[in-house]
């Protein structure tokens, strides 16, 4: 494709603006059409991405390499699924969003994710701290709005405030960290930083490490790594469910691409790079423990997924900590691809079920196996994959993570991984248990599913198995094995 890559983001941006404009002219029309427009537009973008190859971008702060394309795809795909979910969730949104017409505000709810998607796509390509910072903030600020979107819903607002304050705090640290990195290296561009790092004098290395660690803190916040994860359960629970899905997949994914790029460029100065790796190891350990252990007693499915999101960040961090291994980048990528599928699938079904049964506790899934076997099956597949049962995508991710960890001799993390996988089986199967073991509450009916969601669900189920059974799909994601 000869189209300048940067145009893709602009296209997405235009798409979002078009949706906004349409919103303002649509008086009584069904706003769900906007979401369909967004989905179609993003699907086009996805197809473009599918056929575009990496190449020079002609810009210093923006690259178009394989990871960039991959993470752009992740962003687009996530947004598509989020939009599909949003359609199902629209009724809940409008309930908490009074306006002139019954659907007022929905257009923004569909358009903002598209704009956020543009931010994520920029972030996937960013190799300059300035661009990283602004696109990160674009994503963050959209999320402020989206999380607090249901402004009649106290929980949504509370989540919004918590996210706002903590995210701004982490931004403060990130900025301070970037400042120090810039101060020591005199550069904001990662490629140039990588080049000048070996010549950083010994006295400046602590400052460099200080900056890098603070950046790590900020990114750790985005990817929900302990001990910077405290916002996650509360915000996930309070936010509108599609946005929770968006947060847990999109925000995390772009956090990881930036983290990978940063960590990788710091490898050129082992004194700092290795310390950064040990910091990540520490984060990985704490994250694994916290995410998986604290999930054990959960009874709310959304919070459970929040803790699970933290737990998976732990596994991903293992892969990042094993950056020295050949397939480390691949491990992150594959794990994220798997994580995307299984988490979005879980959220999709959560949206459908919770819309129907007015609640998102695990008990609301009781007897789902009997009430709606296909939904239950979809969720079963998602849970299996999250727990890491072989022949699903989640297993492939865990497999690669353990592989790279073994290659770099991260035995402590492996031991923790073993323990936490066991915990994971427990809390994921709790949902399975509710669906299949428990009797359904009396006088419930089968849950209606929109055709779009059904298609999306089956596509993801098939993809989960496809990725698990044919790993070449996954390895094909990233031909050059490291970003």
């Amino acid at each position: 494709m000869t189209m300048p890559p940067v145009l893709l983001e602009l296209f997405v941006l235009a798409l979002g603006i078009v949706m906004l404009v349409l919103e303002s002219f649509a008086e009584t029309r069904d706003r769900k059409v906007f979401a369909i427009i967004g989905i179609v537009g993003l699907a086009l973008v996805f197809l473009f991405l599918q056929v575009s190859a990496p190449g020079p971008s002609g810009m210093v702060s923006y690259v178009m390499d394989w990871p960039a394309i991959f993470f752009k795809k992740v962003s687009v795909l996530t947004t598509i699924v989020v939009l599909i979910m949003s359609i199902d969730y629209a009724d809940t949104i409008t309930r908490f969003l009074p306006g002139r017409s019954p659907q007022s505000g929905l257009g923004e709810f569909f358009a903002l994710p598209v704009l956020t998607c543009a931010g994520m796509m920029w972030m996937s390509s960013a190799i300059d701290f300035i661009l990283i910072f602004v696109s990160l903030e674009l994503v963050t600020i959209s999320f402020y709005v989206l999380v607090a979107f249901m402004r009649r819903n106290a929980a949504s607002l509370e989540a919004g405030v918590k996210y706002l304050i903590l995210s701004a705090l982490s931004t403060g640290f990130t900025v301070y960290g970037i400042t120090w990195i810039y101060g020591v290296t005199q550069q904001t561009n990662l490629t140039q930083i990588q080049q000048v790092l070996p010549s950083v004098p010994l006295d400046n290395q602590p400052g460099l490490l200080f900056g890098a660690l603070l950046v790590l803190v900020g990114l750790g916040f985005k990817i929900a790594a302990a001990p910077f994860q405290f916002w996650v359960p509360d915000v996930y629970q309070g936010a509108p469910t599609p946005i929770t899905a968006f947060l847990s997949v999109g925000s995390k994914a772009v956090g990881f691409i930036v983290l990978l790029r940063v960590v990788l460029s710091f490898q050129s100065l082992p004194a700092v790079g290795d310390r950064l790796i040990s910091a990540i190891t520490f984060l990985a350990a704490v994250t694994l423990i916290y995410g998986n252990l604290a999930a054990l007693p959960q009874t709310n499915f959304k919070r459970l997924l929040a803790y699970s999101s933290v737990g998976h960040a732990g596994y991903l961090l293992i892969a990042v900590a094993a950056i020295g291994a050949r397939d480390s980048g691949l491990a992150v990528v594959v794990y994220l691809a798997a994580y995307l599928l299984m988490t979005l699938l879980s959220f999709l079904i959560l949206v459908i079920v919770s819309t129907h049964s007015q609640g998102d506790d695990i008990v609301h899934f009781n007897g789902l196996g009997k009430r709606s076997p296909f939904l239950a099956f979809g969720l079963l597949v998602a849970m299996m994959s999250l727990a890491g049962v072989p022949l699903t995508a989640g297993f492939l991710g865990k497999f690669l993570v353990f592989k790279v960890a073994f290659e770099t001799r991260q035995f402590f993390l492996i031991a923790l991984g073993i323990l936490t996988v066991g915990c994971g089986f427990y809390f994921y199967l709790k949902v399975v248990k509710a669906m299949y073991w428990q009797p359904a509450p009396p006088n419930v009916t089968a849950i209606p599913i929109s055709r779009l969601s059904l298609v999306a669900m089956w596509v993801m189920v098939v993809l989960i198995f496809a990725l698990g059974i044919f790993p070449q799909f996954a390895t094909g994601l990233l031909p050059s094995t490291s970003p």
Partner: protein
Amino acid sequence: MSPLLFWIFAAIMLVFGGMVVIHRNPVASALSLVVSFLALAALFVSLDAYFIGVIQILVYAGAVMVLFLFIIMLLDLKAELRRRPNLPAVCGGFVVIFLFIVAIAEVSFRFQGGDASFQPIAQGPQGDIWHVGMILFQRYNIALQVVGTLILVASIGVVVLSKRELK
């Protein structure tokens, strides 16, 4: 800039920064913040960053602070009630803050050349605003677009979040 002026402005900035935290009345805090930011703008100027200094005054002291004050007035926030301080939390907070300052001091003092004075710079034909602009529109053009989007998103967000509720 002479060291004296630097220290004066630095002191103003820190003291009023502290006032933001200490004052129980939100309005006082906000006004202290304005003063602190003005001093900060002076420090920017002392670093030959005139453009940033101006922006700081325009955006922060001008726009942001007005917004803050406006909201405080709008919500009619009263002074915080004196609540019993949670002693362990306060102590913990101070320990964390202290350790953080120590960490910053350590890396700062180790910074090579940190104790040397700044190299003089030439006053070229173009002011710093020219340089900043060149970089902004050439090298970081794309970032500028992103920021544009960001502001768009922010304005949509504000609209969505505070649209009047019509019955």
